[in-house]
């Protein structure tokens, strides 16, 4: 439990830094980097055996990615 928890916190920290100070500063790079803190959060949830929360988080993250990709499509079409 200890190793999973510490690894999760480390990945969460690295992921937040990667999203906050993203290089190159493009929308797609930031969207892809958003998966890293998600993985950290999943490992923290795994350390505490929160199955329901973990499954729902995976499902909902997929939807939010869909929403943002769709917004980018609209933007590319109109600019």
């Amino acid at each position, binding site marked *: 439990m200890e190793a999973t928890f510490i690894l999760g916190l480390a990945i969460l920290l690295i992921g937040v830094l990667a*999203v906050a100070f993203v290089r190159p500063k493009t929308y797609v790079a930031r969207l892809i980097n958003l998966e890293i803190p998600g993985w950290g959060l999943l490992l923290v949830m795994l350390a505490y055996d929160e199955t329901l929360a973990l499954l729902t988080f995976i499902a909902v993250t997929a939807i939010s990615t869909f929403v943002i990709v769709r917004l980018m499509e609209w933007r590319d079409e109109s600019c």
Partner: protein
Amino acid sequence: MILTYSIGLFVAFAVTGIAFFALMRETDGLHRLLLTDLVEVVTLAFIALVGTDLAEALILPGLVVGTSELIALSEIYRVKEGFNRPPSDGLQIEVMETAPPILAALLVGYGIILSGFSGGAVAGLGVIFYFLSRDHHERFEVIETASGYSWVIWIFAFFTFMIFPERWFFAVMLAGSAILVKVMAKMSIIGTMRGGPNV
């Protein structure tokens, strides 16, 4: 145990600070929307650190509210910036024709086994994938009617809990299947957000 919680709380506060700092420095709208998503992830870490059933109970509505907020904000941003030309057809490759039914069937099957709120979320995700990758010509009034009836069954199950507590197993089965249909119907609407007939 207490030490790990303190360390976790410290890291969670640190990452929330970094996320809000980045949000403060950012001026571009779409970048800010992406950072809002990041803030949602890091603040869920606080709830996850509680580590009991309370955490699971709090995370479920938090995630659902967060997603609906993201959808609403993205719509507002789209209208405000005047992006009013709909995107052309997506990827026209063979795998987009064959994969969605298999993926959707797997997810819906697993969701029905899970049942309840999470089952509805998983099955609804399968329906979303199907609708997003395919043209949809379903009659959505029928799905909405099914959703309304399942809401009635859910309320009925709760009255059964209160009036006939000895029939609790029947009520659990009713409530679990009804909320499955309810959540799945509502989430399937998201899959139609590219627009189309009957929506």
